[in-house]
């Protein structure tokens, strides 16, 4: 073994000499054993917690989904009662129905196209401040919700808790609606109504971008 002592200005102190005497192959081996990597048992997002977090994360991980969810809230706020709460009631149920179709192996045609179109149409409805009959509004929202559920509700990682994934997924979607409703409350003011329609144009532009991608 080569001597790799650092150059020092004077003779080593007695304590330093003592430390050098204790450095033996056994000590070195003990240190190496202590530093040897062992199997990592830290599963930050495994099991139940992972299922919930994964479900919460999924709806907000895709901008197309976020745009449509927020747009449902915005449109509901623009339409006022009872649509403001009926749309967010109808959406999760129909979205879960879409997820059920996906999990049952029933394929839907042009899912990505449907998701992109949902943002385009909802954005256009907000931009135009179009007041449709409640039944028609529910039909539109429910129809597009099926596509969102089919695409996103079925993407749980293996080994995670299905019920906690579902709970996280539904809660995150509902919170996005709530965010849309919260933002939509600005329509109480004249400037707010214009800003709301401007937000509709943003949703529509985003939808057109995703539509372009889906068709490309």
């Amino acid at each position: 073994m080569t001597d790799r002592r650092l150059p020092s200005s004077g003779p080593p102190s007695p304590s330093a000499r003592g430390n050098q005497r204790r450095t033996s192959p056994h000590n070195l081996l003990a240190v190496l054993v202590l530093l040897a990597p062992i199997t990592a048992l830290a599963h930050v997002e495994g099991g139940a917690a992972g299922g919930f977090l994964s479900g919460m994360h999924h709806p907000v991980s895709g901008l197309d989904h976020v745009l449509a969810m927020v747009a449902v809230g915005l449109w509901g706020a623009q339409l006022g009662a009872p649509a403001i709460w009926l749309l967010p009631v109808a959406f999760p149920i129909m979205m879960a129905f879409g997820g059920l179709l996906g999990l049952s192996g029933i394929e839907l045609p042009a899912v990505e196209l449907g998701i992109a179109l949902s943002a385009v149409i909802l954005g256009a409805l907000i931009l135009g401040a179009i007041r449709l009959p409640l039944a028609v509004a529910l039909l539109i929202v429910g129809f597009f919700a099926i596509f969102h559920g089919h695409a996103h509700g079925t993407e749980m990682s293996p080994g995670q808790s299905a019920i906690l994934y579902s709970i996280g997924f539904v809660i995150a979607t509902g919170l996005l609606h709530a965010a849309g409703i919260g933002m939509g409350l600005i329509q109480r003011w004249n400037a707010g109504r214009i800003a709301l329609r401007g937000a509709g144009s943003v949703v529509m532009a985003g939808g057109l971008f995703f539509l372009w991608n889906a068709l490309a």
Partner: protein
Amino acid sequence: MIRTLAWALSLVLLAGLPSAAHAHLVNSGLGPFYNGALHLLLSPGDLLAVLAVSLLAGQSGKAGARWAAIVLPLVWGAAALAGLGLGTAIEAGWLGVALLVLLGVLVAVGVRLPVWAMTCLSALAGLVHGLENGSAFAAAGSDGIAVAGTVATVLTLTLLIAALAVSLRSAWTRMALRVGGSWIAAVGMLMLGWLLQGAS
């Protein structure tokens, strides 16, 4: 021929081996009563069922809520004791999830059920989840004290949630209740899909 039979017999024996029991109570460190209470609090399916029944009961009015608060814990406890006595693994996943969807949709639609219907639904929920709880307790080697802990928790949660739901007066809080129902129904529907795929 004998070798083939031996292989076949080995495979049958292998397939017939009992699988690892997944039913286990979380040890609260405070004894079996609290283990049972904690079991419920850590079982999202059971919690959702209690939540759904309580919200629907509160939405149905005081009389329905009172009956639900009596019937749900009682039937839950009786069924859990029956499951404990039977000692066999009882899986009522489909029924429990279908019930969750029904309860969620009823809350979302804003139905005010008559007392007899609310009582029947509470009893059905208690029966399904109680039996499952009881069989899980049997597999974990627990006794009736754990059941008592679970029943006490069911009673407490039902009373609190149903009372809160009954007391809701303003339009937006009633609206929030129905949105909550739609979320429960949505979770139930997704769970139906996961059950089809064999996940839990």
